[in-house]
């Protein structure tokens, strides 16, 4: 419904509303001064209040809630009343999907809109899966990180299904923007929850390759580094032994690229008992300014470099340096246990 203010007939002049007296706004401890906002909005809300108080669940009330929502999609009470009416009328909820879609582009971060959409989709069941996935895709065209849309998409996959193309869709999004943290999160969501993929054990190998490739494309990308690290979250020994991890660190360190995340990951490796080769030691040493001496403990040197190249977080790197001794001990202990 497009509300063109010139064509709109005031409710007070519509014959089908002649039996209703609108209920005015009563808004809080200070007296309401003469209203200067849209008269049409004020009038609509007056009639909404009237039917809400009378609990009138009719077709005209349904239409009225649509008008009110178009004026102000944030009013949750109107959305809730609309749902009561939809239930009472046993309305065709496919029309309701249309209604939400028309509002979505201008209200894509509105909690009420998304909750309403979920309520409708849940009622429609698995037949709605495809359409819901398409709907979120449309939102992502304009805002690929929309938190509400991602939440909705995850709910659709888990409740209604449609997993088959999800990993491929993540590939697409990351090709568009490799920094899209939501897409990286979704990757992890898919490999751990897709009923047909075999879980993280089965997919880890290919995902590590994927992450490494992404890192080499943009070494300053926080998301890809975190993803790589996360793939080994509960398997430290494999983390230490996977040559690809130390190799990607070395590659990044020897280019002129931003090396904060590479150093940080290397620090994690060392803390878990990794034994660096001479090439790595040289690469780290090269990053230390001439005025500074490198420490015999490579991890300490790395912390010193990080204090310089990431000064905003100097306190964090100083704390890492101090905790190193106990970290490495524990890491080596864990290695032996396995």
């Amino acid at each position, binding site marked *: 419904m497009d509300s063109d203010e010139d064509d709109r007939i005031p409710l007070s002049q519509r014959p089908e509303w002649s039996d209703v007296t609108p209920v005015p706004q*009563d808004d809080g401890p*200070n007296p309401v001064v003469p*209203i200067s*906002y849209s008269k049409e909005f004020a009038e609509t809300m007056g009639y909404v209040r009237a039917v809400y108080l009378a609990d009138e669940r009719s077709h005209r009330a349904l239409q009225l809630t649509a008008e009110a929502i178009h004026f102000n999609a944030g009013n*949750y009470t109107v959305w809730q009343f609309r749902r009561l009416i939809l239930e009472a009328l046993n309305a065709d909820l496919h029309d309701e999907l249309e209604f939400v879609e028309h509002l979505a582009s201008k209200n894509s971060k509105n909690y009420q809109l998304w909750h309403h959409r979920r309520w409708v989709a849940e009622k429609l069941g698995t037949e709605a899966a495809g359409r819901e996935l398409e709907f979120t895709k449309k939102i992502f065209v304009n805002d690929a990180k929309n938190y509400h849309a991602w939440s909705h998409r995850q709910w659709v996959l888990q409740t209604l299904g449609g997993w088959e193309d999800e990993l491929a869709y993540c590939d697409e999004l990351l090709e568009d923007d490799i920094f899209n943290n939501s897409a990286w999160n979704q990757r992890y969501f898919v490999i751990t929850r897709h009923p047909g993929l075999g879980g993280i054990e089965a997919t880890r190998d290919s995902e590590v390759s994927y992450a490494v490739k992404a890192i080499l494309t943009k070494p300053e990308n926080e998301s890809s580094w975190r993803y790589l690290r996360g793939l080994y979250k509960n398997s430290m020994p494999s983390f230490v032994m996977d040559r690809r991890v130390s190799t990607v660190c070395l590659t990044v360190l020897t280019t002129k690229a931003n090396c904060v995340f590479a150093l940080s990951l290397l620090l994690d490796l060392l803390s878990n008992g990794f034994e660096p080769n001479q090439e790595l030691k040289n690469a780290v040493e090269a990053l230390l300014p001439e005025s500074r001496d490198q420490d015999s403990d490579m991890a300490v040197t790395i912390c010193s470099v990080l204090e310089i190249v990431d000064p905003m977080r100097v306190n964090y790197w100083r704390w890492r340096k101090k905790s190193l001794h106990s970290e490495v001990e524990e890491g080596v202990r864990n290695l032996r246990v396995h």
Partner: protein
Amino acid sequence: MGDLAAEKHAKYILLVEKRKDDVESVLMEHLRINGAYWGLTTLDILGKLEAVEQEKVVPWVMSCQHQSGGFGGNEGHDPHLLYTLSAIQILALFDKIEVLDIDKVSSYIASLQNEDGSFSGDIWGEIDTRFSYVAICSLALLHRLDRINVEKAVKYIISCKNLDGGFGCTPGAESHAGQIFCCIGALAIMGSLHYVDKDLLGWWLCERQVKSGGLNGRPEKLPDVCYSWWVLSSLIMIDRVHWIDKEKLVKFILDCQDIEKGGISDRPDDAVDVFHTYFGVAGLSLLEYPGLKAIDPAYALPVDVVNRIFLR
């Protein structure tokens, strides 16, 4: 670095409270009680709460209560956990929690806990860790945490922990600073922070600080003053706030002020609003900016208000 224009901000908030006629205000009518909490708490932090007539605010807050015991965003609105917390917090500011039928409100809140420990926002069933925080904070302020299953509540929140140490709105959802505040706040109130990997989360949180000194809510997003609260209070609750550059953050927040008309915006040179004014001032309080009352990072109320509730 400029200063905090405290007088201007106080005037701005008092003006917003009085002026209910402009479009923006009318469009926020349904969450007026949230707005009142933001405005009043800011005034209290600035030491100006007495400028507001308590005798007018308290009855209005009570008029927002629904027969179920929950509160709506304004008079005539349906009840929801979000507005119930704001109502309790506003009453706490005025030391008027006793006007509540505490058992009635507690029953409403407790009725919204689900089997898996999560909380729905209202009878319509939306689940989000925001609601876990709101329920737990509300019940704690009312001394009624025993009305819910705390163990399950903790378990659900932990199930929302991600591999980066952060938390999302539901299990598997992307880590987001706002959601993290809710989860950490709830765990802190329930004495369950030992389930959190503080070092890992602390690092994720301090990585939110970008070049300008401001904080974002997720990797590769723009900084916003409201994250000065959510990231900062989370860091304080896990004892890692020294991992960010506090001075740079203070400067960022001060740069977001409108020093002529008062108020604070999401980032420098944008339009101000009460929401960001509150988060900016609250953030500065957490950063121990001089002249501000201390605010509790978990309850999001001035420390003296919280002490009054728990130490009396």
